[in-house]
């Protein structure tokens, strides 16, 4: 099915398509950052204990 709507000058679209989210950084790029995920999980280190961690919901 089609859809009719008002004309507009090129470049002045009243119903612009969804803006693209800025592309994700390639994995390699943020290598250093992912070493230390800010979540509490990392603080657990290798400990497999079944402790209930505080969830740091944003």
């Amino acid at each position: 099915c089609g859809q009719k709507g008002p004309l507009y000058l090129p470049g002045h679209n009243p119903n612009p398509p969804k803006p693209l989210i800025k592309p994700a950084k390639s994995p390699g790029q943020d290598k250093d950052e992912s070493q230390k995920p800010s979540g509490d999980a990392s603080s657990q280190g290798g400990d497999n204990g079944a402790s209930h961690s505080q969830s740091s919901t944003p």
Partner: protein
Amino acid sequence: AAGSNTQCCPVAPPPLSLPANGDASTLVADQASLANDIATAQGHVHLERNGQTLEAPYIRYNRKTSEASAHGGLKYLRDGLYLTADKGNVNVDRRTGEFDGTHYSVLDSGARGKAARVDSLGDNQYRLRDADYSTCPGPTKAWLLSARRIDLNRQTGRGVAHDATLKIYGVPLLYTPYINFPIDNQRHTGFLTPTIGASSKSGFELAAPYYINLAPNYDATLVPRVMAKRGFQLGGQFRYLTQHQKGEFDAQVLPYDTHYGAERDLEHFEHIGQLTPHVGIQANYTRVSDVNYFDDLSNDLAHTSTSQLDRSFELTAVQPGVKFSVLAQDFQTLNNYFNGLGGRFDNEPYRRLPQATLNLLTPTAPFQAGLDAQFTNFQRSDSVNAYRTDVRPRLIWGTDHGSWFANSEAAYRITHYDLRDLKYAGNDLYVQPDHNSINREIPSFRADAGLRFSRTLENGWIQTLEPRMQYLFVGYQNQSDIPIFDSGSATLNYDQLFSSNRYTGIDRIGDANQVTLGVSSRFVSPNTGRTVGKLDFGRVTSFRNLRVDLPNSGVTGYDHHGSDYVAGGMFSPSDLFTTRATLGYDAHRAHLDRAVATATIGHRDSYQLDLGYRYYRDYRPARRITRLPNNSNGNRRYETTLIPGQFETLSQVAIGLRAPIGSRLNVIARWNYSLKRNQNIETLAGLEYRPSCCYAARVAWRHYVGNQNGRQDNAIMFQFVLRGLGRFGNSVSSFVQKDVFSTTPQARSTDTFDTIRSP
């Protein structure tokens, strides 16, 4: 009212929320363990990263590749999409992923359904396999598209379904290997909402407009229309828009009208634009193949009540204080069997080929000097024609101190007529010039002053009060031998009381030695600035008998002693109630010349009751409609004959109702009855069944007075709309609104009946 966005049935808000900012990423779980970049988390796992949120009982997340895989029932949210799935894996950084056993909802378009498999192919593109797509809420879907594969592209705003079956309430109705549909407001090529209907003139009819989105600033619409009684008609519309020019072509071709027995077509063109910031052009052209065209092929009242089609081209040049325009205007007349009274009572208006107008006015204060000059070549077959030249220099003085204002104007009008074809003078029953050159010179003086008061009422409303007085002197010259080309008597209203000529046009300049007294008051609610009430009242009192008259003009609102009392009022304390009234009372003869009273109760989107009474005494010459033998095509022919000295009075009652019944039904009814001829003018009933917000069926039945003969025609129209598979077509009310009695000025609709702006 016409819903224009596709977000029709809002989806339930997702239970997750998007991460606050794009960069931070968090992984929270009851237990989590990290071994060489692979984080394994269990129990209420919550992962937020790169604008996405993933929740599942179990997630394995590889920090190096940003691959997350989850199972046991996941919830995934990102910009514009929310889904739940049995299992799936997502590359968080590349925003791609596959999900199995999903229920999805597209947030901005309200589309939702289940799908065996959803692949997210990066930004804004998804592929659904063995999926259902609908915008209907709840378990039983009013309409549902189930397809082997559906591709949604939020970038192009299109959805494409392969091997799709359309189900209405679960009943498969239509299979199509391929269907392409919009998922947002962008314009797209394709079929628009079809309209099915029947009318007494064309029988059963089906119209399926096809829209072609050629470019952002020009597009085309083709409207194939099949009519049982007449055959196949193709309509077309081409619209264009540039920085300084815009316009439209419309055409309809009916190669062979079986009922009429001939080809019938219509062409329409309109354009407006600036050649330079100071020079503008405007063009308008409409032509139909035969006089009964609109009567037979259109049930849009604005068309069926028209009897002349304008063809005009106007060039306008402006500078500060200067305006020069040249107009060429011709008409196609739609009623040839018309015995008028000649002069201004002829069905064919005078052509203006050309009319050149110059308006000079110095943009100064308090003194202004002005000159209005106009040359017109009036032309019409079998009539007295003329070159008319009119020059009117004027001097204006005006001052405004907010609380009071005063202005005065002195003018001297010189008009010269070069008459031709005097041999036709006898055709005009009322004006027979005997020599072919007429000169007229008329001085005029006007002095106008007013005060502006205001006060604040206890309930906070601000009331303004503006008493105003004007003295007008216009010299007398006998004009009874000047043929009438563009003059007529105007409907008397408050502004008209203060105008300097009681007749429109230039051929009759009313003599005057009179005073106009008027008072106008307005009530405004301060915070919204809305006018909640308005009253105005005034009258012209003449010191001498008014001698220039317009022959056979019925009620003009003036007599020898001055004008009718004119009163107007509007009261609208809230959106739920508005009433208007306008009255013209002739004290000398102690009767009403004009009365219009309307009331609207209820709100636009829910219940609304419109009541109206209109009364215009002797507003136009009376006429007799007599039947002639049918023409060669077997079409009925009617002859209209004007009766000199007799006039038609308009006296009509109108009742309009819009009522939602329950949450699914919208009823519209309108009834207009002529008290003078105790005859129905229009009866209308419309029904819009809207079982859920994503689907609507509409039917409207209309019984109305056809053109030229007072014969009653009727039309019935249906429309089915699957909302979300194409922009919501016009609702019944807008199909109805285009006709009479609707209170709000309608924007031009884009549905099938109206590819042509009413001429």
